[in-house]
């Protein structure tokens, strides 16, 4: 069964304090690992797709990495506007659905 586990559930950082969010996933048959950002009252906004171990993608203060069993979302020198819930999802072979984790609620304190 596809499973995605995110940690921590919530994270409070001071502005400028770098950290990482973790996403562990069912390894077998991975066809894509996705990161989304969700603001309150809005739908998830696509950030990154990763397909193979060792792959990295960056966008502004965010960098997503993928190993054989987990993915990390690194946030460097965050700003208050980076506060949101960050969702990780996997897609496996045999179907098109995305299986989501429950997210990490990130708060950046000015």
């Amino acid at each position: 069964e596809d499973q995605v586990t995110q940690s921590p559930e919530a994270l409070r950082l001071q502005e400028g304090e770098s950290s990482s969010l973790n996403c562990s996933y069912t390894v077998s048959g991975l066809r894509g690992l996705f990161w989304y950002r969700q603001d309150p009252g809005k739908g998830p906004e696509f950030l990154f797709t990763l397909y193979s171990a060792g792959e990295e993608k960056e966008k502004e203060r965010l960098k997503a990495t993928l190993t054989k069993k987990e993915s990390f979302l690194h946030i460097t020198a965050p700003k208050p506007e980076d506060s949101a819930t960050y969702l990780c999802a996997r897609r496996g072979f045999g179907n098109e659905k995305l299986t989501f984790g429950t997210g990490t609620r990130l708060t950046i304190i000015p």
Partner: protein
Amino acid sequence: GAGVSQSPSNKVTEKGKDVELRCDPISGHTALYWYRQSLGQGLEFLIYFQGNSAPDKSGLPSDRFSAERTGGSVSTLTIQRTQQEDSAVYLCASSPGTGLKAFFGQGTRLTVV
């Protein structure tokens, strides 16, 4: 519009009534998903449409839930005889094709009273 559009944005209904939620995907996107997000829960897959293929209905929680996609574009999610546990945000997403990233709408917040 440029994005996925969902209507209504909010819906309050009485227990036992039927509701219809609408999704207009991004033009040209062949794949369409419905998800449900309950308070404090992750996104729960409901159904997936791809072109003219038979939909993947494996996530529908009961036979009170159904969805259709007409002409490969607009989709409607119908919940019959609504229950309080159906209260959630229903999210629609579309994708240019199989295996590609999905773009989400703003969701419909359904409250069953």
